């Protein structure tokens, strides 16, 4: 069967499987209104004296020995997750679970003589030809993206005069993310949560920027992780650009009206992999939007994917609370969605400038205003606190730690400051700075 026939078979299977969901959405309705959350977190493994291939070999060895740790595309990273946990009055159980999973990963890495790096983009290795996990999916998908990248596209990244070549889809294997999975109470609730998550993501990204360096070069951005995805995975034809088609990454062209529209958008892009029985999972798996809906058993789950791994577990939990509280406020108050073009500006501002940018937000009168990053995010944090109170969180200090970033800067800001804004820090300088900030854990 040739590639075209495989794609047609995958599309047909995807349509069958999504039709089954659309025809029985009641299956996903929950009688409760609990907030059930599962986290996926990635860290990089590193060793000062070893090559990328040597680190990758040790990573593979530890994966064979340890349970509870898995991998994705990156050959130099580990992934761990929590089970779904109810988050009501307390996040203690979620925090304990994430700390436990992180502890297992840390011990396993130590056992192989590796350090753990808690950062959105691994700054130590070249971007082109980055090693990938040896699995069919991780060979075929980046190769497809590389082969189909639009001719003539500019594949460099860097503000302030620096330039890093990122024209290789496997470059994203250098990236570590925190994914927040939240069970929806119904399919319409999932679509509503998805749209609101897309709207809110830039504020979270502004506060959490932790992806600034690639190949020991300062890109000058606050968090370039999703931007590198976009540039290195842009396979749109000229005709698709004229039609205004977006990428399968980041933000859609417009908010989703219903689940059918969400499925239709996924179906627009090649499936690349061939396994008709798993067409739904493959299609959704390749929908690299800032947030997406997954279907797991009888649950519709919204996954926020835009945030980089944070320097500490505590900061990650605070970020999760910021998201949940702000989303609860937004849904509880039926907050009107920001026009998506404003969100698009907010998102790129967050990626490039973080807290130093200006953001559209809706002030109390409902008017749309553009505010400095710190003012806008402080406003969003205040709304998140209101949402958390509705969820049952009455801890007055909730979010205070992460709010400290409004003064102290995001992790990217702190790392750049520690490195004295060197455009091309040395490996030694980077190791020292990351160690000092607690982002490189021996």
């Amino acid at each position, binding site marked *: 069967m040739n590639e075209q026939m495989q794609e047609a078979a995958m599309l047909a299977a995807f349509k069958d499987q999504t039709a089954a969901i659309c025809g029985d959405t009641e299956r996903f309705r929950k009688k409760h209104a609990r907030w059930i959350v599962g986290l996926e977190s990635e860290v990089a493994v590193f060793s000062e004296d070893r090559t990328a291939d040597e680190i990758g070999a040790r990573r593979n060895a530890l994966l064979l020995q340890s349970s509870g740790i898995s991998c994705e595309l990156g050959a130099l990273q580990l992934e761990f997750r929590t089970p779904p946990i109810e988050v009501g009055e307390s996040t203690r159980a979620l925090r304990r679970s994430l700390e436990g999973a992180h502890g297992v990963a840390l011990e396993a890495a130590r056992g192989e003589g590796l350090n753990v790096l808690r950062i959105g983009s691994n700054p130590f290795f070249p971007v082109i030809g980055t090693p990938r996990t040896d699995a069919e999916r991780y060979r075929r998908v980046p190769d497809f993206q590389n082969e189909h990248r639009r001719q003539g596209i500019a594949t460099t990244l860097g*503000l302030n005069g620096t330039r890093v070549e990122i024209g290789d889809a496997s470059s994203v294997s250098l990236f570590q993310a925190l994914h927040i999975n939240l069970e929806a109470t119904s399919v319409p609730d999932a679509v509503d949560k998805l749209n609101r998550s897309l709207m809110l993501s830039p504020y979270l990204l502004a506060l959490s920027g932790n992806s600034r360096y690639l190949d020991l070069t300062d890109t000058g951005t606050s968090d370039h992780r999703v931007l590198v995805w976009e540039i290195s995975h842009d396979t749109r034809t000229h005709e698709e650009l004229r039609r205004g088609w977006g990428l399968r990454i980041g933000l859609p062209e417009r908010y989703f009206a219903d689940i059918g529209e969400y499925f239709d958008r996924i179906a627009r892009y090649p499936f690349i992999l061939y396994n008709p029985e798993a067409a739904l999972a493959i299609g959704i798996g390749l929908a690299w939007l800032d947030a997406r809906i997954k279907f797991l058993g009888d649950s519709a789950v919204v996954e926020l994917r835009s945030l980089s791994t944070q320097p500490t577990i505590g900061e990650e939990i605070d970020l999760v609370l910021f998201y949940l509280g702000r989303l609860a406020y937004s849904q509880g108050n039926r907050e009107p969605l920001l026009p998506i073009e404003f969100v698009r500006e907010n998102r790129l*501002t967050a990626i490039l400038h973080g807290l130093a940018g200006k953001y559209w937000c809706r002030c109390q009168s409902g008017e*749309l205003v553009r505010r400095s990053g710190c003012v806008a995010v402080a406003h969003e944090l205040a709304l998140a606190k209101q949402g958390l109170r509705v969820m049952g969180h009455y801890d007055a200090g909730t979010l205070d730690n992460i709010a400290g970033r409004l003064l102290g800067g995001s992790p990217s800001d702190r790392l750049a400051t520690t490195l004295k804004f060197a455009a091309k820090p040395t490996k030694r300088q980077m190791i020292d700075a990351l160690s000092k900030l607690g982002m490189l854990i021996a």
Partner: protein
Amino acid sequence: MSQSALKAFLSHFKFQPERNGCIGIERERFLFANGALQPRSAEFLHRIGKPAWTYELSACQVEDRTQPSESLQLIKLNLLSNDSDGWWAVMAIGCELVACEVGPADMSLDVYPDQRYLEIVRAISVERLQAACRVAGTHIHIGTRNIEHALDVYHALREQLTTLCELGDHSNGERLALYRAMAIDWQPPRYENIEHFFGTARVGGFDLNLRNCWHLIRITPHGTVECRMFGMTPHVDETLEWVTRVRSISNGKG
């Protein structure tokens, strides 16, 4: 041709070597409401109050511009930011901003009350005024170091004129047909050397005021080479594709 006259002509160009390779973009859009284009640019500009937005000859049009930048990401953010400002302002005055490259034949011919435009209108036929009002486009500037470099970039782009015209066309050629009706001297000529460029400017009547040059590619007083063949698209990523093409043609020219 005296050397002093040539020198005076060249003094009109303010090259900024530090902006070599930087891109600046101007986009023209129509104001639309109640089923028709609206000659309300003055009201729009008053509302928006941002220097990145300005008027055009047609009072139904407004134009936004970006800061010169080398970074595609910063250019994109600038375009998105201008779009948000524009949409915010049109929402406030009850209009829409329409990214359409040809206005309807029966559109208002009201002209923005700018002295230069009023003089232009007095000097041209109604047909040319109609053509001028109906066309909207995207102008892409690329910074150059000096006049020699500008001529090199100009000629490289000129060689690709047909391709670039096709790339930026969303009206089956109608916009460019109207542009040619409006700007009879639209074809960017080949300049054998700087003296020939000066001579052409004198004959074309733009030696004293470079803005009177209506060629689809021209060298501007800002020391940029400006591509004026692109139409309008509502999609920022398509505009960036044009930028990438202009830049790639210009690269390697000094």
